């Protein structure tokens, strides 16, 4: 049987709600799981979650729009967040930013057309004594220089195969 992404999302939401307790307090943990697996929280996902929790979809949307790690638009497989706060700024974040934009061919706030990378600003990542700091999904890189930007992106590209496999499995036949 062909399982569409929507059906899969719906069944995932059911599983996660069960795990996190099926009430309003479960909303953000479930949204976090959706974001992690589907790289976005789609309108359909918000609708399903709202129905299950018995709240208005606008409530779900207002939560999604509040938190910078939850995104309504599709994000890349790798979300690259460069710290723009003062200590990293003083350690040369502007040049790292420039190099990230050049290597990815996008500006901050955008996603590459192949859907691999999103580039975002972050505020202080808690690595101020060893900046500039970059968070790639859950992995932190410190003392990033314009030259090492390339290595970080290559590491992502190499692991992308694994992620790609996982996602084609998710969206494929069951």
């Amino acid at each position, binding site marked *: 049987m062909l399982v569409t992404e929507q059906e899969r999302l719906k069944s995932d939401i059911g599983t996660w709600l069960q795990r996190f307790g099926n009430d309003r307090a479960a909303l*953000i943990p479930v949204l976090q799981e959706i974001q992690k697996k589907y790289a976005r929280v789609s309108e359909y996902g918000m609708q399903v979650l709202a129905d299950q929790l018995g709240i208005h979809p606008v409530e779900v949307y207002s939560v999604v729009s509040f938190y910078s790690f939850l995104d309504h638009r599709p994000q890349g497989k790798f979300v690259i967040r460069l710290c723009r706060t003062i200590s990293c700024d003083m350690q040369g974040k502007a040049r790292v930013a420039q190099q990230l934009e050049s290597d990815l061919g996008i500006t901050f706030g955008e996603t590459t057309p192949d859907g691999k990378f999103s580039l975002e600003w972050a505020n202080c990542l808690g690595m101020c004594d*060893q900046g500039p700091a970059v968070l790639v999904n859950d992995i932190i890189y410190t003392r990033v220089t314009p030259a090492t930007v390339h290595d970080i992106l290559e590491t992502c590209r190499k692991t992308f195969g694994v992620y790609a496999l996982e996602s084609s499995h998710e969206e494929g036949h069951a």
Partner: protein
Amino acid sequence: MITPNHKAPLTFATIEPDVGLRAAMAKPRADLIAEITASQLKGRGGAGFPTGVKWNLAAAAQADVKYVICNADEGEPGTFKDRVILTDHADLVFEGMTIGGYAVGSKTGILYLRGEYTYLRPHLDAVLAARRKKGLLGVNVAGKQGFEFDIEIRMGSGAYICGEETALIESLEGCRGEPRNRPPFPVDTGLNGKPSIVNNVETFAWATCILVKGSAWFKAIGTQRSTGLKIFSVSGDCKLPGIYEFPMGITVNKMLEAVGGADAKAVQIGGASGHCVPASEFGRAIAFEDVSTGGSIIVFGHQRDMLAVAKNFLEFFVEESCGQCTPCRDGNPKLLEGVEMLEHGRCSMRYLNELSSLGETMQVASKCGLGQSAPNAFLSIIKHFKDEVMGRTQGAAH
């Protein structure tokens, strides 16, 4: 795990595990809280509320359910000590939360970990699992009949404001992280409307130390109004940025000497919400009664443009304001616009004075600590560096 650039020896490393917890369980609850109160430990998250008083209020509240919440949202620019404490001394923190649970009569602890620290999660889960296995969490904790306590971890999602305790609670309840009016305070009406203590990571770790070494030990260190030791996160223009432990009340000068930043032009104490202290005031003490900080120390060398510093902080607040109240939502962009005028040498002294009074209005009229402290850096920079920030010629970075 990422190690700090530099890490001074910490008292935490000398504390034997679970001695504090057992000492706490051996005491009646009232005596335990009295011990914390006697140490005069004040919250290490920034606001400096006396921990013993907070615990006492929650203990006195009548309710079937109470919560112990550890605030690990660490988002203040320049702060990374909670991350280091959770990396190297997580047991002390969980032990402190358990002690807190016993003190106030709670079964449920929650660690609210910022989303940016997701990589710490496997380590923290492992520490919790090990504690459960050793009987230090669960039923009859550490052999104490009838005392049940466990800790769960909840993740943040990239919002600085969720470090504010009532916003944190809103977020735990599945809502936007918008601060509530206080009072009522969380000790009375917290998570799910139940009495809750919210404390910083470091505060819980010190509570454990106090149970091990005694309140007299803690109280003998520091100043009369700011007792004990404090962990500092130092960054910026100095030779040895990293993690330090000093007695409360240390002067800015002494700290700069230790971190190799003696020739600094200014130091930002308390992060973006803190104050910018110029070299002429380096004799001041880092303490609740003088310049206070949750741990963030950012050193500025002579090459730094202080207007750029003010701009960076204001951009931070414009972005992180929850937008709920007008002074903060509209005030921060107005101050930022003023900085941009200054950048171009297009700000009259009269307008600058107007901006100052706007800043002062924000300090009193904003709903929560974010808006109340957002103008601090701007105000202290224009006060101390007027000659540097005014009269710029177009385009020149100064």
